[in-house]
């Protein structure tokens, strides 16, 4: 008997999609026979806009490339400009940068937890974890003056001195979060109903992941301990102690467990940063004036480990005050096309949101 195939669009306006994108699904009953990712809903032409702005002006726009976790973009941009222009950053500024990056990572993981639990209808976790993320954003507000877009990590250092008593407040928040993580374990990660949904779903095979350029939790969920903070250290990560958690199953649940362990590692790194932060030191290098700041005719590639995988910038200067070319490589592009499309085939419709969230697909960075 021939069964009818219906085609539906999962998104862009859909509660189960991770942002403004859509997945075209061919369904036979509730089983997916073909999946195609559609993007283009968010394209703003960042890379072109950056070519029209001076270096200082372009700095404000890069954080908009990834909304849930803007700071890796700022760090990437600053690192690339510093490498091209030959600027050295003070140790204190580097520590502050590591602190900002790890706080942002923690916030992004909490936001991911809300999405992942929402995709299986466990709204309570999301209500709690978004609250806890807000506490991190409150600290960002005091430090940088911005809630979501911090525009804080700047070529040459960071823009503001730490407010009085900031490290104590951060330390208190870490104690609180440490306790909350146990509550999340009970309600979410160890919840039998979540395990029932997540184990054995969206399995990525171990052999292909390295060949196809996946990164982040997809790799670490398959048992590969790859992390740019360890493999290609930037800032001060080679002086800090942390583990790279891995799981071997490669399914949605393995990726969730990797993230659970990463949250604890972030707290561990932040505690070290608080202990080792130098008391004195400049936070900002002397930079040329706005229109005099030029880049030499060279190019470079820098990459940092974001909460979802490798985030890389290619940057080329041409001796002028503008950036000649900038290319952004986020983890979501590869995950949303070459991984998601084959992964969805054969799954049920119920698991689409589950798998998309576990891959950490973030549309704004797919299309810039």
């Amino acid at each position, binding site marked *: 008997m021939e069964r009818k195939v*219906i085609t*539906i669009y999962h998104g862009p306006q*859909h*509660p*189960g999609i991770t942002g403004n994108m859509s997945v075209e699904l061919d369904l036979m009953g*509730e089983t997916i026979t073909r999946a195609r990712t559609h993007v283009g809903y968010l394209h703003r032409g960042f890379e072109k806009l950056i070519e029209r702005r001076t270096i200082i002006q372009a700095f404000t726009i890069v954080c908009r490339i990834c909304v849930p976790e803007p700071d890796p973009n700022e760090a990437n941009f600053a690192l690339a400009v510093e490498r091209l222009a030959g600027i050295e950053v003070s140790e204190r500024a580097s520590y502050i940068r590591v602190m900002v990056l790890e706080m942002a990572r923690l916030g992004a993981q909490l936001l991911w937890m809300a999405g992942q*639990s*929402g*995709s*299986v*209808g*466990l*709204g*309570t976790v999301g*209500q*709690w974890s978004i*609250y806890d993320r807000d506490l991190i954003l409150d600290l960002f507000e005091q430090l940088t003056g911005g809630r979501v877009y911090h525009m804080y990590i700047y070529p040459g250092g960071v823009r503001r001195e730490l407010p009085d008593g900031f490290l104590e407040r951060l330390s208190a928040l870490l104690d609180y979060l440490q306790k909350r993580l146990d509550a999340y374990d009970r*309600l979410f990660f160890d*919840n039998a*109903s*979540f395990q*029932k*949904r997540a184990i054995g779903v969206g399995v990525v095979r171990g052999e292909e992941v390295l060949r196809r350029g996946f990164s982040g939790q997809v790799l670490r969920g398959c048992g590969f301990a790859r992390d740019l903070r360890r493999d290609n250290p930037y800032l001060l990560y080679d002086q800090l102690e942390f583990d790279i958690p891995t799981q071997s199953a490669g399914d949605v649940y393995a990726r969730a467990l990797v993230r659970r362990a990463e949250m604890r590692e972030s707290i561990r790194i932040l505690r070290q940063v608080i202990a080792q932060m130098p008391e004195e030191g400049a936070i900002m290098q002397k930079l040329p004036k706005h229109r005099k700041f030029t880049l030499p005719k060279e190019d470079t590639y820098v990459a940092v480990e974001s909460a979802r995988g490798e985030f890389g910038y290619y940057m080329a200067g041409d001796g002028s005050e503008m950036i000649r070319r900038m290319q952004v490589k986020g983890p979501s592009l590869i995950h949303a096309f070459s991984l998601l499309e084959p992964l969805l085939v054969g799954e*049920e*419709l*119920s*698991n*689409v*949101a589950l798998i998309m969230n576990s891959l950490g697909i973030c549309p704004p960075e797919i299309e810039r």
Partner: protein
Amino acid sequence: MLLLDLLLMLLIAYGFGFLYYGLYRNLSARVHGRFGPSLAQSFSDSIKLFVKEESTTFGWMFYLGPVIMASGAVLNVLFIPFLNQGESLQGLSSYGNLIVVLYLMVLGPLGNALGVGSSGNPFGVMGVTRGLTRLLALELPFYLAAIGVMIDAGSADFGIIMQAQSTQSNMFAHPLLFAAAFISFLGFMGKSPFDVVGAPQEVYSGPATEFSGKFLALLMSQSAMFSFAKLLLMVNLFWGGADHLGELVAKTFVLFVAATFIGSVYARFSTVQSVEFLIRIPTLLGIVGLALL
């Protein structure tokens, strides 16, 4: 006199249904750590929906769906006695029995399937398919429990079933049957982990996807009344009914709070998983419970 009684029953079911829905929103908000809306929020919602313009048309079959659902809920309320003694609030229970009520419980979802099918929305159809699949799995343990209760009381009549529990309620006399019925009751109430029908992350609002305005208000009213009917049914079958209105409110409230809290801490099963779960665990409990009778 009977007419007045019936009207009163409907009014109580409607009022308490909405109050409980408001309480549900409030209590789950407390679990989330927030205040939640005011108790009267659902009333405001339904009044607003009743005065909203209606612009979609899919033919009269589409509009028939909510109407059949609402009539199913109304009949359900009328055939279940509110109190276990006295003359008032007995409704039509002397003309029907448990079997009629169990039959009427299926009417709503079937009517919904009729209406949603004519809208042609794939998500609506998918939601209805999920609903009917789940319904089949839900009914098996619930029927087992109901049969057990009927065998125990020797009758399908609500009055006799409640009389039989005057010394010890069925919940303690037959805990396995109660467990089976309670798990499928969670499913009937549309609570997690069995809320696969209208899962927003999967099929938008499921069967309600195409309904707006007055028909959405009708759907909301019927689901409020229907959940009160289900609470009543559980109280009558397993907790020996209620002597007066205060006891009724207390008993339904406890049951309702239990369902709300369980719903807010478990993840949603997929269709296959919930059918598998319902066929396996509560059905097994029901069969063992029947065997122990």
